[in-house]
């Protein structure tokens, strides 16, 4: 294992995932590159159909070669995931990388008691006996904050509340102390109070066990409060990425700022209504030329319709990159529009969204 491999938990290079369909080839993920350090938390934000879920499943190596064409590189903890055989991928799943899915009810087995499901993940290590695994499952349930864990272990998924179910799914994911957890919209199916507790749990686990986290969400607020860095995806490409504070303070790509403007705010002082983004995400079998956001963008010029912008770093903000011909933010109505980057004073949005 070389030096470069040990310092990065996850490296994604020029990843491209295509699905051949009857209507043509759908490029769900297009030239995506990402980095993640050990114990670091990355948020991936985007509308439905922007390729977030496909990206996460590909990072895990879950996409089936029979249905998807995958090119590029995914290096997880020094191993190239895409070059591994199904068998070695399987040995990696659960141990090195685990996944938490969106709907905790459908992601848990309907009949098998939850304790048994967790114990099964524990027993990946062959040395663990059945009894030890059962005890460990109860312990894990306690770790994720399930009360009366010993009794609950015998329950089935339908007997638990939504929040409890997602805790069980998380217990299953951390059973073998993975280095990376990929959480695909882990709180979308939960109500807001439960959502906050589950997100806090993720924070705690990442800190305590130094687990790297890739959190996928369509909710900027969720990602902003609970991750270190953020990547905004649009139509299979990365539109903007960088440290959360920078992206929120000075969004450069027009899509990012449009997304922020679409969040309802309750700050009383300024009664700005959320501004929805007009139109629908493009059909990925036939994407628009140039910048993929251009048909919906209020600031699109000729250049936008002709060529796709590359990722450019924001001056003075290392790691904050955007792909836009006319960068800027229109979150603050007066003056702020136009050139949003630069050493502007702390933006009101950052405190609002991050609060």
């Amino acid at each position, binding site marked *: 294992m070389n030096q470069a491999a040990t310092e990065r938990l996850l490296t994604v290079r020029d990843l491209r995932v295509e699905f051949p369909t009857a209507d043509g080839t759908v490029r769900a993920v297009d030239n995506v590159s990402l980095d993640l350090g050990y114990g670091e938390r990355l948020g991936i934000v985007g509308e439905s159909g922007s390729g977030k879920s496909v990206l996460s499943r590909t990072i895990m190596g879950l996409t089936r070669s029979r249905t998807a064409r995958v090119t590029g590189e995914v290096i997880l903890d020094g191993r190239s995931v895409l070059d591994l055989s199904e068998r070695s991928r399987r040995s990696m799943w659960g*141990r090195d990388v685990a996944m938490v899915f969106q709907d905790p009810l459908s992601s848990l087995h309907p*009949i098998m008691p939850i304790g048994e499901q967790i114990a099964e993940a524990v027993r*990946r290590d062959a040395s663990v006996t059945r009894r030890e695994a059962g005890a460990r499952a109860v312990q894990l349930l306690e770790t994720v904050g399930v009360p009366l864990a010993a009794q609950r272990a015998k329950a089935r998924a339908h007997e638990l509340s939504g929040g409890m179910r997602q805790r069980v799914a998380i217990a299953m994911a951390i059973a073998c102390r993975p280095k990376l957890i990929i959480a695909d919209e882990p709180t979308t199916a939960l109500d807001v109070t439960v959502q906050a507790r589950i997100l806090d749990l993720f924070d705690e686990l990442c800190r305590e066990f130094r687990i790297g986290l890739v959190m996928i969400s369509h909710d900027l607020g969720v990602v902003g409060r609970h991750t270190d860095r953020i990547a905004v995806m649009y139509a299979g490409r990365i539109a903007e990425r960088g440290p959360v504070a920078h992206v929120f303070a000075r969004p450069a790509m027009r899509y990012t700022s449009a997304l922020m403007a679409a969040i309802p705010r309750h700050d009383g002082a300024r009664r700005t209504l959320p501004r929805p983004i007009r139109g629908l995400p493009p059909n990925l079998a036939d994407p628009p030329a140039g910048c993929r956001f251009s048909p919906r963008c209020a600031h699109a010029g000729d250049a936008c319709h002709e060529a796709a912008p590359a990722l450019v770093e924001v001056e003075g903000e290392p790691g904050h990159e955007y792909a836009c011909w006319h960068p800027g933010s229109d979150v603050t109505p007066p003056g702020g529009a136009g050139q949003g980057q630069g050493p502007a004073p702390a933006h009101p949005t950052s405190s609002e969204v991050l609060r």
Partner: protein
Amino acid sequence: MTRETTRETTRKTTRKTTRKTTRKTTRKTTRNWRLARLFLLRLLRLAAVLFVVSVLCFLSLNLLPGDPARTILGVAGSSPEAVRSLRHELGLDQPLLSRFFTWLGHALTGDLGRSYVSGQPVSEIIAQRAPVTLELILISQLIALVCAIPSAVVAAAKRGSLVDRGISLWVFGVLSTPSFVIGFILIYVFAVRLGIYPASGYNSLSTGLGNHLGSLLLPALSLAAAPFALYQRVLRADLVETYGQEFMSVARAKGISPARAAVRHAMRPSMLGLTTSVGVTVGTLIGADVIVESLFSLPGLGAELAHAVSGRDYVAVQGIVLVITIAFVLVNAFVDLLYGVIDPRLGASSSTAGVKERVA
């Protein structure tokens, strides 16, 4: 009567124990109550089904041309007087309805009457022949399930692959071949060509277990063929549906082996359709059983039924059909209970409703 006893017990316990335990007892009693009611309802349903089947069977037999008295006497002895006196002796000169109710009254007391042809009590005939049929059906269903379950699991786990398509082709071949054709093929290959198993006839258990099972193997195989194909189709379809569920992706992402995922995760939620088909198939199997038993000349209920129908032996037919119906209803009541075991979410009372929705 049960109701009163239960209430009495509840009252007694209530008086004796503290409030806490009372609540527990009451809850338990209500549950027992629900089970008792369920059981009674089942019993009523069984009685209703039996009555309807008896009526239909009796009426349809009387619509058939032919006269048992004539059949018994044969062409030579069929002088009008002889026929008339025999008809009187057998009670055939009574009106239809009175004949039916006489039979029903006797049947309720356990007397199924005597065969017109042999004069043997029908219950005795059934007692002699039912074990052969029961064994034949059990063995055939065992063979069908033992072949269908693994092939369905393999086909579903590798759906769309060459293996899956190969199995499908084979299954559709079997499904579209009538059981007697399969019987002929088996006789030709194993009895005529290879000479391993007898072409026909029955060896009772007293001739040795090997001989006994050997004489049942070929008929059981021909009887197993169509159910095997059906079970494989049903289970494969349910498994494929289960494989599409999120929890199977989760199981995969946990890193457990495909074999374990198939057996421990996919199987149980996919068993309901198969269970239903087994229950229904056992009922329809009697049709194939009649043919197979006649083909292999086995002394079972099916062969006897065919014999009784062609001899216009109404009483024997009635009795045999009654027994078959009871067996069918019992098997399906058992299947209803199995639903709750397979999927505990389907409680005892809601079991059938939930499953029917799912299966439909």
